Each structure stands twice: as structure tokens, then as C-alpha cells.
């Protein structure tokens, strides 16, 4: 295969920077990465052909500084920039500036990023093309009649800030008597968080499932879907377990949601990789939003279809067609991704930090990691440490492999959610595939660390006592005979 680009720079960090670099280098291209000094000891910086340091008032600010990244990429003679997810990945001005500087942005064009980034516009676009959106009322359509139109959507409904994201400023209204009061509170939150008080309301789906479809489009007008993922297991609006196929859907529903996603992508002339997200409840799907980038959970799709999505992104960005037709994209078996976070489930998922003293991922399992042994988990970034991705012939086998992979993952020095993930996987509802986006909140008992049994406790105390210098020294200071006297006295 001829080389797509001379060199590709990853404008990101952590596990996704390493993930993208792996494909770039496997395809015979030079892989570069930018990094803030805080990220010196990370896998991406170690594996890159060249790691370029960037600076900023905070580490996060460095990765958001598009002008600096473009200038340094240009100086290094980079041909293409891959933005990963988060940071600049859905920033239309950045995509435009990369192109203006004579480099290729690995992602959709600025027009698509802009259209899909505006939730109200994206929603309207999808509705106009005949695809399902939840019944709604948009304030901007006619502010004078907003409350009245919101009332006719009916309860329960969800008030959302037009400029919103991340669940901020969203309010559920079940009693229409408090509608106006809740609208005012949502408006003031929208102003506070986003500097924009405009709102819209839509029907709220009780106990919804989050289903999303991976799509690919190329510059030759081809659009395919790469099947669906279920991402309903979330804490604080953040996904922690994702899988494919979606356990809650019938084969007919799966085919339909994938067709709808392809249709939306086709209507938008979508080019590159993207994800169309839906809310599913009571047998109905409603469009939620389109993410114009690679998704954190893209590996579950790669595992069931055997396609390298980053390779497809790079091919498409280079002007080549998608490597497969729709008929050639088939899903086999079941894949599950678990997000390993530096957090303490027992303390309401409070983030933790610490040195990574020992890091031994399980053998024979795909682990996309953002830390290395000898590195550290700091509070400068998102607390995701690694993703564990397993594949089995069916869901039961994938669940077993997921549990075994977590049990065999040795990470010492920083508390993680590994034990919590294992308790979740063992939960009867999760085992049955019976859950929704509120399931974690409904099971707070799983968050508490179960009390240690006597045998485990004795083993831990024995090993700790023998390895801790002051304890051993104290024991050594007392001769054996006296120790025995003490023993008797006890």
C-alpha cells in the first residue's frame, strides 16, 4: 500500500494519542504527537517518532491552543493532523485553520462540524429530512409562545439550554404546574454556564437507553454504518461500560436504527468517521446528536467488525474511498469496553491520584492505556487511565472475559474503579442486559466497598506488615523470647 501521508501529528494526549499513533506507524507513516510537560511519561510520547512540547497556562490550555499546535506542526513539516476526541476535535475553526495552513485535518469539514455542533440546528436538520426527533418546542422559533408550546409537548419533559452540553442546566419537569418556574431556573443556569439563556424543551423518555451508531462517509459519496453500540451504563452523564451489539434491541430494531443513522449521514454529505447518538425508550428511537469525531468507545466496534477505524479515517482524509461496502461490514460475536477510571466509587466517584508504581495489563486482552509504569495519575486531566476491551463469541463469554481481564489487571499506586466495575458486571440486571442510563444511580449499594473477609484481611495485614520497614524494625527490636512473653500476656 502506498503511503497516505508523509507524517501525521496527533493533537491529543493519553490513551487516544497512543491509539492513533499505533495505526499511523503500522501504516508506515511517521507519527508525531504534541505534549505538555506534565505528559512526558506517557505511552504516546514514548512511542512517537517525534514528540513536540507545547505550553500553556494549564496543561489543558496547551492542548486547546490550536494556533500554537498548528504553528509547531507546520514547522515540523507535518502533512496531516488527527485531533483524537475532546480538545480541538469538534472545533470548526481549528479544522479550517489546519486546512488554511496547508495540512489535512483528519475529520469532517468545518461545515459539518458547525452544523452538528449546534444542537438546535442539528435537530432541525434531522427533522426536516424526515428522521425521528423527540417532540419538542424551541424558544428561538417564537419566544412569545414558548411556554405555551412547551406545555403542549406534555409531561414529562426535559428543558435544555440551546448552547448546552454535558448535562449542565438540564431540568426534568414531571409536574406542569412548575413549568414556568423551572424554565426560569434553567435559563439562569444556561446563562451562568454558557453565557446563553436560550432554551428548548423536548419530551423526556423515562428510563432511556443510549444507543449510538458508528458511521463512515467518504469524499466519493459513499456512506456506511458500522453497526451500533449500547452505552447506557453511565455515571454523571459519562459512559463507563459500552458494548456491541446492543443487548436491549431486537435484530429488526438494530437494522432500523443503523439505517436511520446512515440516512442522516447521507443527508449531511458526511465525510470521515462520526457517531449518531439516539435515545431509545418504549420501542421508539429519537435523534440526540451527532459527534463529528472518533468516539472513546470506538474499539468495541473495531472488535466486532474487524475494521481499524483510525485507518479508515486516514484513508478517507487522503481522498480514498472507504475500504469496504456495506455488505462487507458484518458484526461477529460480542464486544465490551470497560473504562478504568482513577476514582473512588465508595466516595461518590471522587477522582483519585497517585503514582503508577506497577502497571501490568492482562495478557491477551486489548488494553488502550494512557499511563505507563513509573508515570503518575495527576489531577490535571480527565481521570480515565485505560480502556479494557474484550471480545467473545456471545455476550455471556464477553462478560466472563471482561471480569477476568479486570481481575488480572494489576495497577498499584492509585485507587481505581476496577473493583466497582467487577461488581457492576456481576449485577443480575447488567448480566441480563436490562439497564438504562439511570441504572448506576439506582444501585448505590454497589458503590460501597464490601467489608473484607477475615482471611483476606489477615493476608493483607501480613504482607503489609512484612514489607513496611517501621513495622519490621519494631518486630526485630524485640528478641523472640520476649516476644513470646508478650504473646502469652495477650
Amino acid at each position, binding site marked *: 500500500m502506498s503511503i497516505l501521508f508523509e507524517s501525521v501529528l496527533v493533537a491529543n494526549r493519553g490513551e487516544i494519542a497512543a491509539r492513533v499513533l499505533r495505526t499511523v506507524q503500522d501504516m508506515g507513516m511517521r507519527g508525531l504527537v504534541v505534549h505538555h510537560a506534565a505528559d512526558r511519561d506517557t505511552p504516546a510520547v514514548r512511542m512517537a517518532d517525534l514528540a513536540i512540547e507545547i505550553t500553556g497556562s494549564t496543561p489543558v490550555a496547551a492542548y486547546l491552543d490550536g494556533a500554537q499546535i498548528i504553528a509547531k506542526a507546520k514547522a515540523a513539516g507535518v502533512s496531516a493532523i488527527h485531533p483524537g476526541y475532546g480538545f480541538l476535535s469538534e472545533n470548526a475553526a481549528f479544522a479550517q485553520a489546519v486546512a488554511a495552513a496547508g495540512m489535512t485535518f483528519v475529520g469532517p469539514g468545518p461545515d459539518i462540524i458547525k452544523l452538528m455542533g449546534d444542537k438546535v440546528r442539528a435537530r432541525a436538520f434531522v427533522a426536516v429530512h424526515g428522521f425521528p426527533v423527540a417532540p419538542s418546542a424551541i424558544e428561538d422559533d417564537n419566544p412569545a409562545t414558548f411556554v405555551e408550546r412547551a406545555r403542549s409537548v406534555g409531561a414529562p419533559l426535559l428543558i435544555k439550554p440551546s448552547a448546552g452540553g454535558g448535562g449542565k442546566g438540564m431540568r426534568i419537569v414531571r409536574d406542569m404546574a412548575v413549568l414556568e418556574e423551572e424554565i426560569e431556573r434553567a435559563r439562569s443556569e444556561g446563562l451562568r454556564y454558557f453565557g446563553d439563556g436560550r432554551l428548548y424543551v423536548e419530551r423526556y423518555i423515562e428510563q432511556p437507553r443510549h444507543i449510538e451508531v458508528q458511521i463512515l462517509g467518504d469524499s466519493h459519496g459513499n456512506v456506511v454504518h458500522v453497526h451500533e453500540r449500547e452505552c447506557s451504563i453511565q455515571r454523571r452523564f459519562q459512559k463507563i461500560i459500552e458494548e456491541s451489539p446492543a443487548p436491549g434491541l431486537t435484530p429488526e430494531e438494530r437494522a432500523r436504527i443503523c439505517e436511520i443513522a446512515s440516512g442522516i449521514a447521507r443527508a449531511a454529505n458526511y465525510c470521515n468517521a462520526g457517531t449518531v447518538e439516539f435515545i431509545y425508550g418504549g420501542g421508539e428511537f429519537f435523534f440526540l446528536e451527532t459527534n463529528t469525531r472518533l468516539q472513546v468507545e470506538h474499539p468495541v466496534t473495531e472488535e466486532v467488525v474487524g475494521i481499524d477505524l483510525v485507518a479508515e479515517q486516514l484513508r478517507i482524509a487522503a481522498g480514498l474511498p472507504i475500504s469496504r461496502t456495506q455488505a462487507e461490514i458484518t458484526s461477529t460475536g460480542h464486544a465490551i469496553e470497560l473504562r478504568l477510571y482513577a476514582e473512588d466509587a465508595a466516595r461518590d466517584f471522587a477522582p483519585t*491520584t497517585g503514582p503508577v508504581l506497577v502497571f501490568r495489563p492482562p495478557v491477551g486482552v486489548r488494553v488502550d492505556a494512557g499511563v505507563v509504569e513509573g508515570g503518575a495519575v495527576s489531577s490535571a486531566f480527565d481521570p480515565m487511565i485505560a480502556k479494557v476491551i474484550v471480545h467473545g463469541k456471545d455476550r455471556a463469554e464477553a462478560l466472563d472475559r471482561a471480569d477476568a481481564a479486570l481481575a488480572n489487571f494489576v495497577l498499584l499506586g492509585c485507587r481505581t474503579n476496577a473493583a466497582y466495575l467487577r461488581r457492576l458486571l456481576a449485577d443480575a440486571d447488567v448480566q441480563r442486559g436490562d439497564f438504562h442510563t439511570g441504572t448506576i444511580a439506582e444501585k448505590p449499594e454497589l458503590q460501597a466497598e464490601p467489608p473484607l473477609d477475615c482471611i483476606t484481611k489477615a493476608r493483607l495485614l501480613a504482607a503489609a506488615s*512484612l514489607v513496611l520497614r517501621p513495622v519490621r524494625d519494631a518486630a526485630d527490636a524485640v528478641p523472640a523470647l520476649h516476644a513470646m512473653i508478650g504473646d502469652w500476656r495477650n
Partner: protein
Amino acid sequence: MQHLYSIDGQAAEAWLSRTERGYRLLCDGARLDVALDLASNALASLTIDDATIPLALAAQGDRVWIHLDGAAHEIVLEDPIFHHAAEDGGSTDDIIRAPMPGAVIAVHVQPGSVVKAGDALLIIESMKLETVLKSPRDGIVEMVGFDVGRSFDRDAVLVTLADEA
């Protein structure tokens, strides 16, 4: 001597002593002959009486992390002086420590401020999460450890309250 530990935040006690052949651990009334064989790469095997248990282990300062039976545990050797002071009551109420690492985003009090139980002392932020730290009791602020914008580690002393006269 008796040592105080916390295992994943739960208090525990154990006593290690020498025997003619090695070490003995006293905990929860059990008397166990123990030995630890540290192999390379953090792997170790623990012998308790006649059972041999494989584990992975790493220690730093007074902390030990142990991966045993598919789960990681954090064991901290507690300072008995601090521990007893806390047990006597009062003193932990005087010290407001950081529940997690982060940065100070707002300070509502200064030394000398009169506060009531539940009053907001400061707001901290850690990885996009805002937390209001409240006063555990009525009292007078003695010290504020960090200015707005400063970052701190877990357990850092953020605010102290003056002793009640």
C-alpha cells in the same frame, strides 16, 4: 508492638513479632506464622502457616498497595498519635482536610472569621467537579492553607478552626 492500619479506608490493627524461625502476626485474635518472599517485578508470595498465596505488591513510604485475588487494596500504616487524637474527639473537627486532590476556586473565610456548622468555608475543584467544603462545627477560623488558584494533594490541611475555649 500494635500497629494501626487502614485498609481501603477501614481501620485495622495488627501486631508483628519475631519467632525463632521467622515472624508471627497477631490480628483479630488469630496467631499466624507469616513469611514474605519478594520475587522480581513486584510479584511476591506470602506464606501464612502452611498456605502459599501469590500476590503483587508495591510500597511507598507508609503505604502499601497489594493486588490479591483479583482486586487491588491500599494499606496505610497510620500514625498512632494522630489516630488517638482523632479517637479522643475534637481534634479532627478542628482540621478540614482535602477530600481529594484539586485546586481552590473560592475562599469564603479568613483567619478570625466566625463560622457556624455547615457554613461554606471554601470551594474546591477537582477534574471538573466542584465541591463546597463546610465547617464541621461552630467556631473561629484559625488558618486558611491555600489561596484561590492554588492546588493541593489529598489530605492537605485546607482550613483549621481555633480550639474552643
